[in-house]
């Protein structure tokens, strides 16, 4: 243990000196989180999606949306809604970008739904404001999923012989309209955009930071100092232990500094510190294991660095550290669970939704599973080679 500490202390002082660990572990993620959060308007208060509304229908199905859903969303500061009288004006404004999106309810929409013929709402979008369009779409979709339910309720009411269609619809719509908004929030267990980018960049660059400790074993071989370490009166595992400790310290320190830094500088909200720390520890360990496997099968420090960069970027992209996974295809969200990054972000998301500490258990176990599996692989591949001079 003493020898491992001596080795880790030496490695850490080397890493601090060459500055690349500081650059990749702190400067780059913090800088990118700052830039992203500046480019992409953050927080619900300031993020106004400008939406135009053309309601040619004015029937009982659109009424709850126009009268209750949209005002509620507007009050939350998510949207600003403008009424339009005709389609061409709305279309040209959306195209020009003065509106980010447009809702078009055609005449007779409600009737079509109520007579079970199925109606069509049009969503106008602007390619330059795809996130805004997606938000507008999300609001509409969560309402329409309620409409389906209404349609079914009305349908079955008619079959069972009720006659006052308007009354039934009003009753059916009254409760779901309130539920719709509640659902939008509950389904969105994601981090706000500032926290998302802060955490995403932190976990993305974590893999680069951790690599410095793991790869220094290759560096020892390269400098010829590995035989000296092997000849020293210490347990050989202390050499591995020292390297792992170096990685761990670099990783956890950079994560903590980033969490504190983004909280102070751009108002990221990481959530319960204990939960965050547990997720961080598990995240660092998973990164350590994955980078160890790459280091073990590499021959030179350069080769290791190249492969580690490829692996770190690939896992980071797949793990959804650059864009929220909900914005991508479903399959991606599924595959992303093959990365520790996604588990880390999921854990933070659940934590930020205000749930108890128990929500970190599954993500933590998933990340520790990565650690166990990759360390086992590293031992299998590296047993013979790593500690040979």
């Amino acid at each position, binding site marked *: 243990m003493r020898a491992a500490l001596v*080795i880790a202390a030496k490695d850490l002082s080397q890493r601090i000196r060459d500055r690349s660990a500081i650059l990749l572990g702190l400067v780059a993620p913090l800088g990118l989180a700052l830039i992203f959060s500046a480019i992409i308007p953050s927080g619900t208060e300031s993020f106004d999606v400008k939406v135009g509304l053309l309601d040619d229908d004015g029937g009982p199905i659109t009424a709850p949306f126009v009268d209750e859903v949209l005002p509620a969303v507007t009050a939350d500061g998510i949207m600003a809604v403008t009424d339009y009288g005709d389609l061409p004006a709305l279309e040209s404004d959306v195209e020009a970008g003065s509106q980010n999106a447009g809702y078009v309810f055609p005449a007779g929409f409600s009737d079509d739904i109520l007579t079970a013929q199925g109606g069509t709402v049009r969503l106008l979008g602007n390619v330059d404001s795809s996130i805004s369009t997606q938000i507008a779409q999300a609001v509409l979709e969560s309402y329409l999923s309620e409409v389906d339910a209404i349609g079914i309720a009305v349908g079955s009411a008619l079959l069972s012989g009720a006659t006052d269609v308007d009354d039934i619809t009003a009753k059916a719509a009254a409760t779901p309209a309130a539920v719709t908004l509640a659902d939008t929030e509950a389904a969105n267990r994601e981090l706000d955009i500032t926290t998302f980018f802060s955490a995403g960049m932190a976990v993305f660059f974590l893999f680069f930071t951790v690599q410095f400790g793991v790869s220094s074993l290759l560096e020892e071989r390269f400098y010829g*100092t590995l035989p000296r370490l092997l000849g020293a*009166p210490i347990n050989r595992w202390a050499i591995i232990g020292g390297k792992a400790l170096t990685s761990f310290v670099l990783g956890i320190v950079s994560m903590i500094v980033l969490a504190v830094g983004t909280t102070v500088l751009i108002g990221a909200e990481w959530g319960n510190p204990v939960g965050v720390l547990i997720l961080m520890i598990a995240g660092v360990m998973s990164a350590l294991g994955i980078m160890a496997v790459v280091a073990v099968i590499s021959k030179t420090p350069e080769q290791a660095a190249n492969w580690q960069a490829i692996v770190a970027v690939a896992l980071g992209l797949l793990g959804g550290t650059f864009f929220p996974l909900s914005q991508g295809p479903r399959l991606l969200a599924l595959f992303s669970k093959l990365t520790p990054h996604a588990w880390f972000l999921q854990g933070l998301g659940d934590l930020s939704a205000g749930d108890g500490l128990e929500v970190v258990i599954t993500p933590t176990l998933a990340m520790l599973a990565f650690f166990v599996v990759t360390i086992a692989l590293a031992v299998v591949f590296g047993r013979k080679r790593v500690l040979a001079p």
Partner: protein
Amino acid sequence: MNVLECEGLVKAFDDLVAVDGVGFHIAEGETYGLLGPNGAGKTTSISMIAGILESDAGTVTVAGTEITTRTTEGKAKIGYVPQDIAIYPDLSARENLRFFGKLYGLPKQSLDSRIDEVLEVIGLSDRGDDRTEEYSGGMKRRLNIGIGLLHEPTLLILDEPTVGVDPQSRNAILESVEQLGRRGTALLYTTHYMEEAERLCDRVAIIDGGKIRAEGTRRELVELVGQRDTVNLGVVGSAQRLVDALGAVEEIESITSTEGSVEILVEGASSLLPRILDIAQQAGVGISGVEVVEPNLESVFLHLTGKALRD
């Protein structure tokens, strides 16, 4: 008690048997040389002796403690100077020494003063705080040795410490090795320079193809070849006339001549030389130069392996 005893060391890399049954011992205060060409198995042998490389077979005992790759305490008795420079370029000499001092568990109170001592010995006192990447090749070599000395080992293993070093640094290194030997540190010194082995070592093992071919003091090894000296004579006038005149001398084993020179192989050149010069004078052949070459480890190596030590 011997400082080092090793026996039956074997190491193969895939099909290549790099070391094949190497064994020898080093007595207290003795300087022992492993002399052999590139690829002879010197580094592989001492890597096993130092407990760095796992052996396929054989045993190593240093000052009574068995050494394997898993030994911890026993390794503290060994100082190891790798063939390739093994220092951290981004640390200063002092920091390099401090790191290895801690690793060898040197007591904190005395570590700094011991580091100063070593810096003094290797002549780096005034550069001790500079990063070693700014050092010259010779300075790096000296630090490389200094790290091996730091913990005052019972047995110091030096693997070709003068390779790629300018003559001046080389001499400085040889002198400090001699000094260590005089102070009673047992030394295991590998080299492919015959002169270094002759100058430094009390006993020498000649290693080739992973095997020790012969072992002993310089004298003992030379006797293996037979004690023949070579006398080279520079001749003014007819070399053939001198060859004919010398034909009567029984002690001369063989004689060859070229234009302007005669080469004579004899046993004990020093006693025979006056007679040879006498005969030359009587034959009326002028002598422009005399050179006597005693047999050396180079010729021993040639004799034993049929090839030169270096190509």
